[in-house]
């Protein structure tokens, strides 16, 4: 049995666990058992993934007599697949571990149990299949199972709407992928990826392929303007599933994009990178901007997923531009950055979603305006959430910074691209990325500050208790990985090089520890460099020194007293800065243009007794410009056409008659 065969056994195993989940009794043991088994299988998949990534061997292939009878189901395990196996199964294992505790507190655990392992199975399957039919099959199963998971709390109307929008968009994406495979298959009708690789060398319209990838995989990943479903659907699912959807499923979409753009398409042209870069830049920017405006913690996180997908696609776009111009180092740096960010995002986004799940469980609230002060009640969760927040805000020495740094480094060499358009475009996109990173930091100061710091804004928040050990250990694993990758990025970057070789045809030389063992040197020892480990070390030294000197020289007495607050402390927690007021400056600066944000202040004059009011209205450009008109258009059409359901028999006969006359005219004309 080779790795691929071993890996493939995971799929029926997970499905089997799903079947067991269907029959599970209402006891904690059963729940733990199902989640634990799922987690173990994922862990196993993780091991296989790492083994596949490390192994220096040609891609493994396998054909099973499934699917379409003339082409069968093809499976293939190469380094790209192996890398994404790691991403998927790491997220899966962590979420399962979390769910061993959290899953018990869910109001309807038995609705999740059968679908959860199947969802993971579908995601894993997407990665290994090597023909269009099986790919779409797995792809849609992934949508379908996650749709079921979004609907777990189906009595809430907004969840149902989210689920509807989600599956509709998923359907749209699948159709686009169908087109795409239609293009790649050409007239021959051979749907195996191997045939696509051959075909694409011929006269396949590459731009069309790219366009369809952006629509098909992009809608799943959450690229602007097809992201509208994402911030609605991801938060609606139970938190561990949200973690999977945001942290992992969007990565499967990235996988699809990478596979199609770089692997199934023989020739990448530089022009293709232009739409990718523009869309990615806008996605990153608008995602984070919208996130800042959110008060629902899970929705905020979901919008950040949109942002990070933008960042990943920036890396992809850069890689395309460099590869098309045969600037292979740049391409390799860019693709490494995209891959690393994929991994990083899956880690910290899962971590944050799990943290939000813990908060949700402890307080029953997702609205951060009703939270506050949780750092006292849930110190451990708060710490892990802080790690996640810092990581997603791209702060050194954590992992989020490393990948963004690599992307910036790739951008720094973009002036070497021969096309003037690229020279001008990439710095602008870079500015958007910088803006997005800074805004992300602002957003997480808000998210963490309002949720965990300050004073509790509701009784639920005041009475929260720390979450259970399983949940905490899942978060601990992810937080540790965030820190480790931040400190030792070199190891991961070196691991990613086979994937880079596969995608852009070159890889960065392995880091030899020329300057120091853990220095990241994408352009060789003379080029730009970054060493997270030493920064961490220096910061440790500096803070130790500081601490020592403070201990040595300062007065050690610490007293507790009322807050100062310029001498006018107000005991009511309502006087604290809220999430809405925190985001107000940024909303004023950016929101009025992008979201048509309008503030409506109603301040009673002195002497009037009515309450003052403050209202903010915002519109989502993608929603207002795309989804809403579409929905209205179909509604309008259906109302107009509905008359046809209420005609009289005579009128129906008239329709038949007219059809006949038309055909007769046609025949007369044709003769």
């Amino acid at each position, binding site marked *: 049995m080779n790795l691929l065969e071993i890996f493939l056994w995971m799929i029926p195993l997970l499905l089997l666990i799903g079947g067991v989940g269907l029959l599970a009794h209402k006891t904690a043991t059963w729940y733990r058992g199902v989640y634990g088994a799922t987690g173990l299988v994922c862990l196993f998949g993780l091991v296989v993934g790492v083994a596949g990534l490390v192994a220096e061997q040609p891609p493994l292939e396998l054909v099973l007599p499934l699917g379409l009878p003339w082409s069968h189901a093809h499976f293939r395990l190469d380094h790209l697949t192996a890398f994404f196996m790691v991403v998927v199964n790491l997220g899966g294992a962590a979420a399962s571990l979390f769910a061993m505790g959290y899953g018990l507190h869910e109001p309807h655990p038995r609705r999740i149990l059968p679908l959860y392992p199947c969802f993971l199975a579908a995601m894993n399957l997407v990665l290994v299949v090597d023909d269009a039919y099986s790919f779409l099959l797995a792809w849609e199963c992934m949508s379908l199972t996650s749709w079921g998971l979004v609907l777990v709390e189906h009595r809430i109307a907004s969840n149902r709407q989210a689920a509807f929008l989600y599956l509709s968009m998923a359907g749209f994406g699948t159709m686009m992928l169908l087109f795409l495979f239609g293009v790649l298959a050409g007239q021959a009708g051979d749907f195996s990826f191997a045939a696509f690789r051959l075909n694409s060398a011929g006269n396949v319209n590459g731009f069309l392929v790219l366009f369809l990838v952006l629509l098909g995989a992009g809608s799943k990943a959450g690229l602007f303007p097809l992201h509208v479903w994402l911030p609605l659907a991801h938060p609606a699912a139970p938190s561990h599933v949200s973690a999977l959807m945001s942290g992992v499923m969007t990565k499967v979409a990235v996988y699809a994009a990478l596979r199609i753009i770089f692997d199934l398409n023989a020739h990448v042209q530089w022009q293709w990178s232009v739409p990718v870069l523009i869309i990615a830049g806008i996605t990153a920017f608008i995602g984070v901007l919208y996130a800042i405006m959110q008060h629902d913690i899970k929705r905020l996180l979901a919008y950040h997923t949109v942002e990070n997908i933008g960042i990943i696609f920036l890396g992809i776009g850069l890689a395309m531009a460099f590869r098309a111009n045969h600037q292979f180092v740049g391409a390799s740096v860019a693709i490494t950055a995209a891959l690393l960010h994929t991994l990083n995002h899956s880690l910290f986004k899962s971590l944050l979603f799990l943290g939000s799940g813990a908060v949700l469980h402890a307080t029953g609230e997702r609205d951060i305006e009703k939270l506050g002060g949780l750092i006292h009640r849930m110190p451990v969760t708060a710490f892990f959430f802080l790690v996640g927040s810092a990581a997603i805000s791209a702060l050194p020495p954590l992992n989020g910074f490393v990948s963004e740094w690599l992307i910036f480094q790739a951008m720094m060499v973009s002036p070497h691209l021969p096309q003037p358009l690229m020279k001008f475009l990439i710095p602008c996109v870079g500015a958007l990325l910088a803006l997005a990173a800074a805004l992300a930091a602002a957003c997480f*100061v808000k998210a963490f500050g309002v949720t965990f710091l300050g004073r509790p804004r509701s009784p639920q928040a005041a009475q929260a208790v720390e979450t259970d050990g399983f949940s905490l250990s899942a978060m601990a694993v992810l937080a540790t990985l965030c820190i480790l990758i931040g400190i030792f990025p070199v190891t991961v970057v070196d691991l990613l090089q086979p994937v880079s070789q596969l995608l852009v045809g070159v890889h960065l030389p392995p880091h030899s520890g020329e300057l120091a063992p853990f220095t990241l040197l994408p352009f060789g020892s003379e080029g*730009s460099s970054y060493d997270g480990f030493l920064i961490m070390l220096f*910061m440790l030294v500096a803070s130790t020194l500081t601490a020592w000197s403070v201990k040595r020289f300062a*007065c050690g007495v610490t007293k507790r007293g009322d807050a100062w607050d310029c001498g006018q402390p107000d005991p009511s927690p309502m*006087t604290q800065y809220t999430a809405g*007021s925190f985001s107000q*400056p940024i909303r004023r600066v950016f929101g009025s243009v992008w979201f048509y944000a309008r503030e409506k202040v109603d301040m009673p004059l002195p002497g009037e007794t009515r309450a003052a009011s403050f209202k903010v209205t915002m519109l989502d450009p993608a929603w207002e410009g795309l989804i809403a008109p579409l929905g209205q258009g179909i509604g309008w059409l259906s109302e107009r056409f509905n008359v046809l359901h209420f005609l009289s028999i005579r009128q129906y006969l008239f329709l038949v008659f007219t059809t006949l006359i038309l055909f007769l005219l046609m025949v007369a004309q044709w003769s």
Partner: protein
Amino acid sequence: MELMHDLLLQGWQMVLVVLIAPWITGVVRKTKARMLRKQGPSVLQPYRDLRRLLSKETLLAENASWLFRVAPYLIVSATWVAATLVPTFATGLPFSWVADLLAIVAILATARFFLALAGMDVGTSFGGIGSSREMMIASLAEPAMLFIVFTMAILAGTTRLSTIASVMASGTMGIRVSIGLSLFAMLIVALAENARIPVDNPATHLELTMVHEAMVLEYTGRHLAMIEIAASIKLVLFLSLISCLFFPLGMAQREDGWLAMGIGLVAYLLKINALACLLAIGESVMAKMRVFRVAELLSIAMLFGVLAVFLLFLSRGM
């Protein structure tokens, strides 16, 4: 031996930035006072302030959390590390490759992140105001900073600071419009990052105009001392950055002997003192802006950054 030399050199710079930080703050204050025809406190007053703060008891608000107490250490260490990695009197310091310009900016962002969180910890309205505005200003300063980095990277082919400084010092660049534009942008960014007029007024505690001061309102005693020193170090850092990027005169090389190092040190001290004076003069002649005007100021910085990059394509014939 080599290693000892390296460590010593790096250690010296580490100590240096801390040592001169209060001094520079003192110089700025003194100059501003003189500009206003006031006597002003001594240049050494910041040192005394620190000692006074350290000797005082620390008063924590009732619901201040562990984060509030940890944050000052983190802020100091992050700022300190960042400042250590910026070339001051010599380029090519042994650990100069640890962090490039981007990473230094990001390390400062880490410090700011925790400062803003600390501002929100006690749960007062002023803390929130400060954090919110600080993050808004930072988010606008960052893209402008990126364009400066871009300009430098195009000129030097890397974002590693010591290489940039050597390239700039070598004089092969000549004087370019792009460099001037990015200097201008850099100045604005530096003003914004260090909470100076016209973006913020470090001297005021007038409620509605505070940004930085509002965040640290609840800090007392040793914690406040650390916040203060961190702010001073950050000022030194930015002055060093400007001097190393735009005026790399007299900077020593790693291999140079003690004499060159000495000259570099003197040159460095002169440069940053001069810059501090210039800063004070600038602050005196400008008025503080309304918070939302800051966005416009920073967009101008960004615009200059963009122009700098694009002009560079033109002038280098790329």
